[in-house]
């Protein structure tokens, strides 16, 4: 019994370490249901249609939404954020998210604390050009 517990602890510790290494390696941002809903909101809310048309994202489906984990893509997106102050957030407590759908990437910040109001949402092309910076 004691051996089983030690083995389980080892596996858990190893997995946790690997997860951290993977994140560090890929420069990936976290994923969350909340962040995924933000992308769904952008793709489906009627009064945001003008933003979707501006960026060519009007035909994307919510089933296409994915968390960005590819190391190379994450590096490119991080570099884009660093080079573009408009994509940064200096507010405390905000988390940066990278998502994609089809040929588009989405960069945005969210705070976990509940509030009412507007938040940033940026649409990026497959060649890492900023197509639109919005408050949604």
């Amino acid at each position: 019994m004691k051996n089983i517990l030690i083995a389980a602890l080892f596996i858990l510790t190893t997995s946790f370490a690997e997860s951290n290494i993977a994140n560090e390696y890929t420069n990936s941002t976290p994923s969350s249901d909340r962040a995924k809903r933000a992308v769904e909101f952008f793709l489906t809310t009627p009064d945001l249609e003008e933003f979707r048309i501006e960026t060519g994202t009007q035909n994307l489906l919510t089933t296409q939404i994915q968390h960005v984990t590819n190391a190379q893509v994450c590096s490119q997106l991080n570099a884009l954020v660093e080079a573009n102050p408009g994509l940064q957030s200096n507010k405390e407590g905000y988390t940066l998210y990278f998502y994609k759908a089809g040929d588009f990437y989405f960069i945005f910040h969210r705070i976990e604390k509940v509030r009412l109001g507007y938040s940033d949402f940026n649409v990026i092309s497959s060649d890492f050009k900023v197509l639109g910076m919005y408050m949604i």
Partner: protein
Amino acid sequence: MQLVDSSGRETYTFAIEDEDGSVATFYNLILQLNADQQAYQPFLLKYEMDEAFVPIYLSTGTLENFSGRLTKIVLNGNLGVDRRGTASNGAGLDVDGTVCPGGSVSFGSGGGSGGGGWSTDPPDIADPDPNTQVKCTVYADVTDWYQADGTYMGRDYHSIWVECEDVEGSSADGDPCAPLNGEIGIIIPEKKPCKTGDEILDNENIQKALDDLWKDSDTEKPLNERRENGGWIIKNDQGDLSFQQVDWPSDACGMNPPTNFLENMPSKAIGFVHTHPFFKKEDTRSVCGEGAKKKYKPGFSEYDYEFLVYVAKQTLNFAFKGYVIDGNKITQYDFRGPDYQVQKNRCGY
């Protein structure tokens, strides 16, 4: 509506759909025919009720003792008319308009619900503003009629509406703002029913609360001085509805509830309503950020939605409703998201 005066001069009045849906403002499009049945000087009459007159209008449905502002907007475009009083240029016609200086008006005995005669006094030229000009686009829904053998019978314009926006420039030359002679028909828009079909919005207690909430949002002030306001809609065990306003830090673009706001949430709360202190088409970028809408549209934001999701999950009440009031609409939404939002006209408040 057709009016023919003693000299045989004909005028036609068309009701104009007010896209912004304000009960306090409506437009009529006036087309005049000369003796040769040619149209000349089409113009819009814009009726803006003042704050004191709106409740009178809402209760009586007439313009008797109208108190407010009447603006004549001369359309400089070429609007042809046939004898049946129908505009012939159809949908999407761009028409330049010139705002005439303000004038005083008096209503004849027929001025009432659903139309009637309107006698005009010569307008008093007051506060002329030669730099004010609007650009108007006139739209119409058109039906062409044919006999069974294919003979063209004519064209009907069921619905005509005009969208105008201020543009810089000076008034047109000439005297298109000369006093009107004779009678002009008025078509008053049908009084909007104060029943939306939504139990909450049709409740008088809630309507009063929404009215107060909107007034507290300071929407008559510049954008940066406005503020969002909100509160809980409560339904007790007897089914009675009431409202409890919250006092959370806010600005024109958001509210920040305290971290423990759920502890102070009424146990019988069934919904949360808050204001967006903007009117349709207002440019909100100066206060909400460069990425905000150049032309505000009614709706709710992603954080607004997340707020509702959070409350619904924490209280296990997935029927919890969110409402956003802005200057034109009330948007209702729930846990299911944007696809299930419903927008209703504001009703008496």
